């Protein structure tokens, strides 16, 4: 995130949505992380403007909100793709070749981890262990899990979403 990042225009209704979420948690600053979870579930990501409204709603500094958002890897300021791809890089997946799967994904989609394709369709994200170690290596596209993924399978998997 840099300062010249495109500004997101929030509608009044979006501001209200965030305020409602804050109110659900009694506008209590201690609930910041829960509020961010719920807000991210609503908007898909946490752009600066959303964080500002959250800060107002909970009466904490924007800097603090931003500090928290950038601390936790679950929170993102970049919108995910329509089909977010999560690759498990837990140890079990790693020793069974997750890095090769990741290389293939990056090659095919021409993006890096944490980025979204230009058409907004896919984004790649790395997770630490989704707990399906029996199926290692594991790739998730949206909610769907693919187990025992080999690099050769990537193209086929992505085609399902074209």
């Amino acid at each position, binding site marked *: 995130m840099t300062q010249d990042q495109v500004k997101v225009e929030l509608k009044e209704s979006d501001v209200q949505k965030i305020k409602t979420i804050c109110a659900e948690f009694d506008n209590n600053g201690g609930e910041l992380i*829960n509020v*961010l979870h719920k807000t991210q579930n609503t908007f898909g990501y946490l752009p600066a403007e959303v964080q500002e409204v959250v800060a107002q709603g909970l009466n904490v500094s924007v800097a603090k909100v931003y500090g928290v958002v950038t601390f936790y890897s679950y929170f993102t300021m970049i919108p995910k793709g329509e089909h977010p791809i999560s690759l498990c890089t837990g140890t079990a997946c790693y020793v069974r070749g997750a890095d090769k799967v990741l290389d293939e994904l990056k090659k095919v989609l021409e993006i890096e981890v944490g980025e979204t394709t230009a058409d907004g369709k896919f984004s790649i994200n790395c997770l630490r262990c989704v707990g399906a170690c029996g199926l290692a290596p594991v790739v998730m596209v949206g909610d769907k899990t693919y187990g025992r993924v080999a690099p050769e399978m990537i193209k086929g998997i992505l085609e399902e979403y074209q």
Partner: protein
Amino acid sequence: MAYKMHLLVCGGTGCQASESAALVENLKKELEEQQLDSFAQVVMTGCFGFCEKGPIVKIIPDNTFYTQVSPENAGVIVSEHVAKGRRVDYLLYKNPEDNTPIAESKNMNFYKKQIRIALRNCGIINPENIEEYIARDGYLALGKVFQELGAENTIQVLKDAGLRGRGGAGFPTAIKWELTRKNEADQKYVVCNADEGDPGAFMDRSILEGDPHAVIEAMAINGYCVGATKGLIYIRAEYPLAIQRLKIALNQARNYGLLGNDILGSGFDFDIELRYGAGAFVCGEETALIHSMEGFRGEPTLKPPYPAQSGYLNKPTNVNNVETLANVPVIINKGPEWFNQIGTEKSKGTKVFALAGKVNNVGLIEVPMGITLREVIFEIGGGIKNNKKFKAVQTGGPSGGCLTEKDLDISIDYENLIAAGSMMGSGGMIVMDEDDCMVDVAKYFLDFTVEESCGKCAPCRIGNKRLYELLDKITKGKGTKQDLEILQNLGGVIKDTSLCGLGQSSPNPVLSTMRNFEDEYHAHVHDHKCPSGVCKSLMTYEIIPDNCVGCTACVRVCPVGAITGNKKEVHLISAELCIKCGACMERCKFDAITVN
């Protein structure tokens, strides 16, 4: 009347990823269609542990254990097994030694040596039905604590049982409770640490998915014993299924009056809230976890003060790990003597491990303390995949160390693992074979630590980064002898000076691999070779002139034009241009390309 037959289907994350939910639906549909739905019942349970072979279906009462069942297999299971009592042989687990089918789990090596205490209800009850939990003595321990034992005796029971924290360090649970109990305050808290973050470990998640009430009951007991009326479960947001099951369980417990005001007529009020982690490994450390629950960056603070003195909102707080809590109700029901018979002198009971990596049977296992690594890897785990050679096992996740062949016969307990240069940790156990490069493995764990370091203290923030860079240099063949010395010193200082457990243990993978696999480090540094053939930069692809027929297949497939040669002449790979992608080797039909 009761069902005559139960079809238990694993509903853990691993099996759900393999469509076990669809399987449940299909089984129910088939039973209905074949009018057997009043005879047999389909139950979605928690994890059976045998994730390698999921989805699992277990049929009660004849105990048949079907593995790798797909939704399409529902028909045959109902029409053959349920209707006619005939086992479906091809869905049975095959003994890897002689390929004969084994029908019952108790006859499988994977289960033979397991004792399930923390996982006692996983794979047996429907976690979304409190009645099934109550039927198996659920909440009885809580009632006993209220009416028969009282707080102090309960803590004494745990002390006698010798229960130690399962989250890693093995601190005696009873002492922790006692400390929190002794600290006077208008409000105290009990916290369940479900921020399982070790890559490759999923013990806590399986317990929460398979037996959420056990944790809830234990927290209520914990609350009563330390004088806390509020409980918090800090759970990873990446565990949606566990969260959903917990929410259902909490509501059920409230409806049954097992949470809320005046529980079981004891006058004790207790309730539990969920707090979500957001992807920070360091939040497994209890002070960091508490800050995170308070809405801050999850940075640890120095202890003392311990959470038992000043924790959540500066009140006395008792933090226990999921698996620790899951042990509590059984210990109270069955008594400390029953529990402390299991295990070793200093480590009582069982430990759940997530067995993963290059073993045949990946899965979740619960074994008595004192079992040897050999038994776990070669009997329960079924040995190394593809008959490769065992090389090392990493216990304790990124904080642990690599143990080798010579350590296989030590019996697993807290002290022995530390003595061997590793640690119990939360229970990840990753097995590695001859194809794994230990420098690369150490680098992998360091990469994890670098990413997960909170950045508060300098040795962890900068030191681990430097360790990683040094390892990276070595895996690229650019390391020097001096680098090895620097690694050693730096690793020691990081351990010595880091603020929290994360940094204090982060050099362990490096230091233990340097100790146990010195040769491998030397091979990288002095010979510029990676003996396992993992480190790309150290590989060279070469053409074996005798085998090359000059077909130009490799020349055409090389993406960077590194291979030259005319038809029917021996080709040549330019080491400078080669990017080591391996495409040529894959394409060659004459085994004319080798990699060194």
